[in-house]
C-alpha cells in the first residue's frame, strides 16, 4: 500500500489523508494489515470502511533467515470508490483442515455503494455496486456489471460481463445498455455509472 505521507494529526483536520498517488483514505476507516493492501491511485476509502488486509494467505513454509515480502490480500485499482460502512474481506475456505485466504482483486473505476459487504474473489473494472449489497465469498464479477441495491450475490456465482443483477439470491435480470459508462466524466457533466470515476473522486473532500 502506498503509505500515507507524514501527516501530523494536529496540523490537518481534513477528513481524508491523501497519498502520493492520490488515494484518499478517510481517517475514520478501519484498516487492518496495511502492508497487504494495494491501492492503485486516485481511489477513495470512505469513513467506516473496514478493510481486512490482515486476512492474507500465510506462506507455506516459514521464511528461513530472510524475510518474505508482504503478500497482497486486497488490491484495488485506480479511481475506485468504496463508500461508507463497507466491509472488504478477502474470501477464505477450509482446505485440508486449514483456513486459507484468497487475495481479492478490485479493478479500476469500481463504485461500491454504502453498507455493502464484499467478499468476492474479483471485481473487474467499471462495475457499479449499489448500497447494502452482500457479495458472498468467491463470487466473481466481470466488467461493466451493475448490481442493484440490496442484492445478495451467492457464493461462487460468476456474473458475466455487462449484466444487471438483482435479487436474493442474485439473478441476472438484464443487460447494461451499449452506452454503459459512456458520455460522462467531462467537467460539469453528471457522473455516469460504470464510467470514469475521477470527477467523483475529485469531488470527495
Amino acid at each position: 500500500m502506498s503509505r500515507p505521507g507524514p501527516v501530523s494529526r494536529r496540523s490537518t483536520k481534513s477528513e481524508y489523508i491523501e497519498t502520493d498517488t492520490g488515494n484518499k483514505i478517510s481517517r475514520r476507516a478501519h484498516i487492518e494489515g496495511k502492508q497487504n493492501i494495494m491501492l492503485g491511485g486516485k481511489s477513495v476509502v470512505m469513513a467506516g470502511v473496514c478493510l481486512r488486509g490482515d486476512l492474507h494467505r500465510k506462506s507455506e513454509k516459514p521464511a528461513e533467515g530472510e524475510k518474505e515480502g508482504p503478500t497482497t490480500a486486497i488490491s484495488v485499482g485506480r479511481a475506485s470508490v468504496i463508500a461508507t460502512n463497507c466491509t472488504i474481506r478477502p474470501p477464505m475456505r477450509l482446505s485440508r483442515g486449514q483456513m486459507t485466504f484468497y487475495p481479492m482483486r478490485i479493478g479500476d473505476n469500481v463504485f461500491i455503494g454504502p453498507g455493502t459487504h464484499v467478499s468476492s474473489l474479483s471485481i473487474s473494472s467499471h462495475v457499479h455496486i449499489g448500497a447494502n449489497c452482500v457479495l458472498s465469498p468467491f463470487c466473481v464479477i466481470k466488467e461493466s456489471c451493475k448490481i442493484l441495491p440490496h442484492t445478495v450475490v451467492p457464493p461462487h456465482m460468476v456474473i458475466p460481463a455487462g449484466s444487471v443483477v438483482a435479487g436474493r439470491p442474485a439473478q441476472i435480470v438484464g443487460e447494461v445498455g451499449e452506452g454503459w459508462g459512456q458520455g460522462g466524466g467531462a467537467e460539469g457533466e453528471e457522473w455516469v455509472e460504470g464510467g470514469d470515476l475521477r470527477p467523483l473522486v475529485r469531488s470527495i473532500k
Partner: protein
Amino acid sequence: MAAAFPYTHYACPCSDLTSTAPSSISKRISNNQPANADLTDDRTFNPHDPRANCALYPLDHLLFCDECDAIRCPKCWTEEIINWYCPTCLFEVPSSAVKSDGNRCSRNCYTCPACTAPLAVAAMPQPAGDYLKPTEPATEAYMLQCGYCDWSSRDLDVLFSKPTKITEQLAKQRKARLGSSGKEASDKDAKPNPVGHDTAFGSLTTFYKAQLSESGDAQNQFANSPYSSPANLQRIMNIYGGLSANTLKKSRETPQPMREARDSNEGFSTYTPDPVEHEATVISKLRSLSWEDTTTTEQRLAAPPNNYSRFADQLWPVATPLRTRKGKRCETCRHLISRPDSKVSHIRYKIRLLAMNNIPRIFMRPLHLPNPPPPNAAFRLRADDAVQAELQPNVAQQYILTIRNPIFETIKVTLATPGTTPGNVASRVTILCPSFPVGPAGDVWDEALSSSTTPASASNDGSRKAAMASLTGKAPEDADRQPEAGKVWDRTRNSTSVIVEIVPGPLKAPPSIVPKTEAELADQALDEDDEVLEVPIYVRAEWETVIDADAFGPGAKDDKHHGRQGEKVTKELAYWCVLGVGKIAE
C-alpha cells in the same frame, strides 16, 4: 419508475405515442415547410400514460442509425445472436451444440433447483469417527451444494464418486432412477408409464420424421425461405404463383395423410390414471408436509426434469441456461448499429452507434439548494444521503436545464413543453428561454486555445458582466443572480443551460362546497405513480452540415436542400424526453 431523481428518459420517435410534435413546434415547421402542413395534431406525450413506460429509455440503452439519421430503440432494431455462452463457466458454446443441449450448459454448471444460486461441488463431510482412524481408507464422495440455501444433492440421495464429469454422472443416476420404473420412478414423474419422458419424446420424433419423409417433401418445399414460415410462403405462392387452375387443383390434392403414432415403440403412450394407492400416498404426504416442502411454479418450470416434481425433495439440479451476446441492426435499413466482440470474457464493441453521441443530451438540477445532491443519484456515498426531499405543492421551484451538444456543428435547439403537465396532477412548467443555440462539441483544446486568444467570444453576456465587475470591484459570480425570461442562464463550449420554473400541482383538489358525485370522486382518485412529477419536453435540434460524397442519405428531411457535394444541408432531429423531477408531497 425505479430511477432516482432527477432523471431524463428519452423516447424513441418510432411509436405513434411519441412521434407527434406539440402544436407550437409543428406550427413552426408547417410555416417553413408546407409539406408538413397536415401535421397539426396537437398531442403531448403523457409520461403517465400506461404505454409510456414502454417508449421511454435511459439514454445509454438507445442507439442511433447513421444511415437513417434516427434514434433506434429495442422496438426498432432487430437482434441477431453472435454467440452463446454459459454465464458460469464463461465458455462459448458452438451454435451447432446449443439446440441438442437444450440451450443449457453441458459442462459441469448447475444451479440450485430451489433458489437458482449456482451449485458447487463439495466433498462429503466424513463422519467424525473417521478422523480418529486415519488408517482406514476413506471412500470419497462428492455432492452438489448450494451455498445460498443449503440445498444439496444429498436431499435427492445423489452422490458422486468423483468431482469431475458431473453431467455424465448425473445423467447416469437420472437414467437409473427413471429406469427402475417401480414406485420410485412413478413418484419421480407422477407418471406411471414405464416409458420415460425423454425416450418417449425421442421415439416420437423419429417416428414423425419418418412419416414426414414418407409423405413426400410437400411441406418442406420452402423450408428455408426468408418468410416467417414455409406454410405462409406456400399460401402466398398459391395465391400469386400464376399457376393454371389445373396445376392448382393438383397442388391442392393432399398427399397421403399422415398416420399418428400407434404403439409405444413409436412413442405412443396412453393416459392411465394413477393407481389409487399411489394417489393416497401423495395425499397423505401432502398432509404431513409443510408448504415449503412442495415446489413452486417457478421451480417446476425452471428445467424439464422438474416439470412434474411435486415435492421439494424431488427437485433435480438445473443445468445453467446459456446466455447470448447479440448484435443489433436497424430494422429499416438493416445497417449494423451495434456489434459486440465475440470474446465472452470481455465486453467490447466492434460497431456501436450510440444515441448519446448523436442527439442533444438533457439534464436538470435544482437551481437553489443549500447542499446540492450528487449529480447522479446512483452514487450514494453515505447511507443518509438517500433521503430525497419531496416537492412541496404550489411552491415554485427553479431548475437549471442543461442541453449538451455531442455533434461537431452548432445546433439550434427548440424546447417545447405543455404549460401544465398531463395526467391527474397538473403542475405548471415554464421554460424561460425555449429557443437557443448550442455550440459544437470538439476537442477540449479548441476551447482552451480560443479562450486564450479571444476571451470575449466565449460568451458576450458574461464578458460584459466580468468587465463591469472588474470596474465596480464586485465578484463576477454574484450569488443572487436572478433568472430572466428569454435569456440563457449559462453557456459553455458545447452546452447551454436555461432556467425552468416548475410549480408542482397539489395531489388533492381543494375541497369544494358542492358535494361531489361518485364519478367525480373516482375521477380524482390518484393512480400509481401519479405523485411523481415528470415533465415531458419536446426537443428539436436543427443544424446545417456540409454533405460528403457518400452522405446522400435520407437524413436531410427536405428534398429541396438535396444538393451537390459541398453544399450545405439543413438537418433536424426531434424527440420527446421526460424529466423526472421528484415526488410531490401530500
